């Protein structure tokens, strides 16, 4: 089984549309949308939900007000300013609580309990190209890294059960906990970038991240003709660092139009961007050693 994670440093590079196209080009695959903060893959893959699972990410402290003596010990020990003090009344700001449990441990009256906190839900669904595992993190929630791990674990399980040998992961943005959870242990990372100085800066950081975790990295440039100069610089940077360059996708209004129609670019058109995307997928497939 091979698992490829598509990441981009920052959102908006066309990563999700590409993942949806790859899924279509690959035939039957398992897709996992690990951009749990702002999942979008379901918009273009039209999943039919098969299973829905609640995600309990962490815990949150709750004070039993009736038995609290107002000693303030909890306020003293909480390092996250999550225990609010109002005269001699103490209460937990659940948005700020990290769920560390220190207040509960040190409350002399033992009136603080750690309650499981629902941070979202995740789904196993069916699409035209195979199963999709996707999730919804409740707005403002923590523990996105944990949810990503759950989604990827489920994707592996489903792939095994259904004898599918390719998993395509729509990774999280950034370089922090959710993306670390998206890439660790995968077979390869495809970094999708754009020819702008800022995107180039972002992609360098995700490449460093992949290198830090020793994962094979490929790179491709979307909207490559917006700035041919920078596209050239990115290609050069890739070659110098020994990163296989998976190709370019030219700017094409069809990209946005496809999205507006709720379709992947491969499904929507057979124009320049669509054929460029299949070129990139061919490259990725060969690099990963995927058989037909």
């Amino acid at each position: 089984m091979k698992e490829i994670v598509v990441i981009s440093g920052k959102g908006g590079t066309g990563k999700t549309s590409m993942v949806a196209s790859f899924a279509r080009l690959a035939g039957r695959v398992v897709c996992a949308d690990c951009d749990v903060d702002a999942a979008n893959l379901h918009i273009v893959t039209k999943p039919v939900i098969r299973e829905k699972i609640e995600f309990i990410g962490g815990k949150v402290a709750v004070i039993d007000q009736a038995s609290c003596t107002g000693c303030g010990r909890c306020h003293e020990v909480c390092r996250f300013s999550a225990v609010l003090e109002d005269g001699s009344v103490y209460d937990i700001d659940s948005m700020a609580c990290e769920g560390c449990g220190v207040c509960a441990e040190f409350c002399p009256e033992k009136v603080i309990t750690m309650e499981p906190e629902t941070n979202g839900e995740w789904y196993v669904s069916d699409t035209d190209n195979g199963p999709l595992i996707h999730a919804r993190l409740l707005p403002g929630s923590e523990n996105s890294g944990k949810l990503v791990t759950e989604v990827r674990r489920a994707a592996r399980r489903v792939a095994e059960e259904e004898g599918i040998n390719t998993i395509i992961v729509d990774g999280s943005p950034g370089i922090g906990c959710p993306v670390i959870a998206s890439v660790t242990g995968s077979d390869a990372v495809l970094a999708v970038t754009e020819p702008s100085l800022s995107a180039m800066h972002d992609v360098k950081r995700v490449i460093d991240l992949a290198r830090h975790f020793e994962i094979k990295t490929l790179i491709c440039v979307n909207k490559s003709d917006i700035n041919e100069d920078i596209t050239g610089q990115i290609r050069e940077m890739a070659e110098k660092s020994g990163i296989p360059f998976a190709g370019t996708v030219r700017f094409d209004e069809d990209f946005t139009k496809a999205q507006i129609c709720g379709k992947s670019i491969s499904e929507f058109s057979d124009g320049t961007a669509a054929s460029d995307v299949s070129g990139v997928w061919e490259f990725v497939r060969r690099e990963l050693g995927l058989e037909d």
Partner: protein
Amino acid sequence: MRIAFASGKGGAGKTTLAVNLAAVAAVRGIKTTYSDCDVEEPDGHIFLHPENLERTDVTVPVPVVDDDLCDGCGKCGEICNFNAIKVLAGRVVSFPELCHSCGGCTLVCPLGAISEIERKTGHIATGVSVVKSGKDAPGRLYYEVDECGGEKNTKETVGLERPGLAKLRFTMGTLDVGEPRSVPIIQDLLTMPDESNLFIIDSPPGTSCQMVESVRGADYVVLVAEATPFGLNDFKLAGEVVKMFGISCGVVLNRVMESEASATESSSRPAQDGIKEFCRENGFEVLAEIPAIRKIAEISSTGGLVAFEIPVMEQAIDAILDRLAEIIAG
């Protein structure tokens, strides 16, 4: 006045708007700070070219165990909710990158065997950006953009007369590669002493802890929404977070695309309508609508400030700034 620029996802145009607004505000003579809180991928410096950056490390406390004092009782491992410290075969092993620095293990150790050391996870930097605008901006051309989004190069400088140089305070945070936790860096950034009248926060994208951390102390949030189905979806999620905090909010609709030929099939109208409806229902104000113009992407790709080059952008930024001034004045 603290204004946070946020969006449900990166790529909506949040940084473009935040840096341009900061630059225009500075040119208008407003004492401005731009603070890049997108610490996983900070990009503001590419547009604002800060000078004389002074760096300060950001550290978090993590436990170290004195093996001579420790008797392997296991209490530290029991309290740790993050698997960051464990007792294996009578010895304490810690995993500093998992530690949330809650201090529980240090407090709970009966033998006083645990102390804390500071571990670096990133840095913050402060400096000054000099904004060159108007006729004095070297090598800058203005572009006229016609109604259909096409453009023609005018060579002539158009737009408002502006003074040539302005300064603004620039701050940014950077997370070290391989470190998972952005929040402590954002906290350091947002608690620095600051004397500006306008403090612009460029938030991390998304809706989770680091975005929450950067908008919670803001007086006003500007949500940037891309007028596409993805954009609508992301915008609503970010809108929910802003609602939870009860902060006043304005919305900028970005990359509005009209296609006459197939108004139903591929115009961005339905997404736009969806965004506006959400705004109506929740009392968010629509501050500006910015058309999808390839030139904006091209200029931004090289780190240029579009407010000084593209009249529609200039007008949009001016309008937003005027509206923010009204809101500040109450």
